[in-house]
């Protein structure tokens, strides 16, 4: 992965304005009068999201936690302390990730449907622990959400960098599946995974075609 790991700013304000303006024109249609409401909304939303993201990117994390004291999605101390590695969504990574993601979600749906539609429901639910090697907060969130859409797994908790995964069928090799997914997400964000010593470091890069 040729992407340089440097502290890049998240996404500059003009880009945000442009993207949000595009979004508004999709939502509101072609009537030019809609910009009477759209313009203040777009500017306000861009400013707010920019400030929020900058707070995150500074590695502080604390102001966010303070403004919403009870929110579940606040940063855990470990994650907040992790420096933002500057990984950015990469377009080729996205093009590689999307077909995989769509295929996996279809498999996930089919998996659940076949389990549920049998005369006797066949599940062996259980919790498993998975230490995550991704460090970028955005990549971590993308990973968490992708886990829930993969067949048989559901991200249930997050402590620092350790995910608790709920498996619908714990007899399957959930950890290997998750490692493959982690590589996919790392590729998507152009992030290089640090190796954890207690784990098999060989990345099964090409063995991802099966479910």
């Amino acid at each position, binding site marked *: 992965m040729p992407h340089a790991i440097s502290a890049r700013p998240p996404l500059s304000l003009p880009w945000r304005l442009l993207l949000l303006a595009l979004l508004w024109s999709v939502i509101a249609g072609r009537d030019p009068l809609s910009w009477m409401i759209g313009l203040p909304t777009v500017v306000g939303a861009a400013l707010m999201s920019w400030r929020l993201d900058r707070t995150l990117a500074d590695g502080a994390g604390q102001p966010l936690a303070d403004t919403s004291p009870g929110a579940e999605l606040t940063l855990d101390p470990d994650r907040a302390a992790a420096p933002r590695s500057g990984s950015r969504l990469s377009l080729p990574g996205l093009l590689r990730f999307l077909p995989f993601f769509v295929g996996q*979600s279809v498999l*996930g*749906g089919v998996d659940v449907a076949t389990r549920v*539609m049998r005369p006797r429901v066949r599940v062996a639910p259980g919790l498993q622990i998975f230490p995550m090697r991704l460090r970028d907060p955005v990549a971590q969130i993308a990973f968490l*959400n992708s886990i829930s859409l993969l067949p048989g797994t559901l991200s249930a908790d997050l402590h620092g960098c350790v995910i608790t995964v*709920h498996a619908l069928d714990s007899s399957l090799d959930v950890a290997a599946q998750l490692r493959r997914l982690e590589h996919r997400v790392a590729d998507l964000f152009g992030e290089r995974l640090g190796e954890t010593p207690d784990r098999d470091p060989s990345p099964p890069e090409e063995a991802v075609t099966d479910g």
Partner: protein
Amino acid sequence: MIDLTTLTPLINGLSVLLISAGAFFFLAGTVGLLRLPDLHSRLHALTKADNLGLGLVVLGVLPRVPDVLYGIKLLLLWIMVLVAGATGAHLIAKRALRGEGEPR
């Protein structure tokens, strides 16, 4: 109004296929919600079957939109439901695991 005459039978057939599959997955989601034994397993059924069902319905309805903008809007809607569904499932699962913050 939506112009019916411009639709080819092929697109119609594809649409029927996609929506039928979508409805099947919605059905599977509800059956899972009613039959699965514990909360986390039910969350599985909810996130996967339901999001896939909605995606298929969106794809099936796509040929009938009056405008390209509506098509983009529908795809955005699906992405949003995907993200919201996965995040919501994570939040509910986490809350159920930790079980804190509730008086009863």
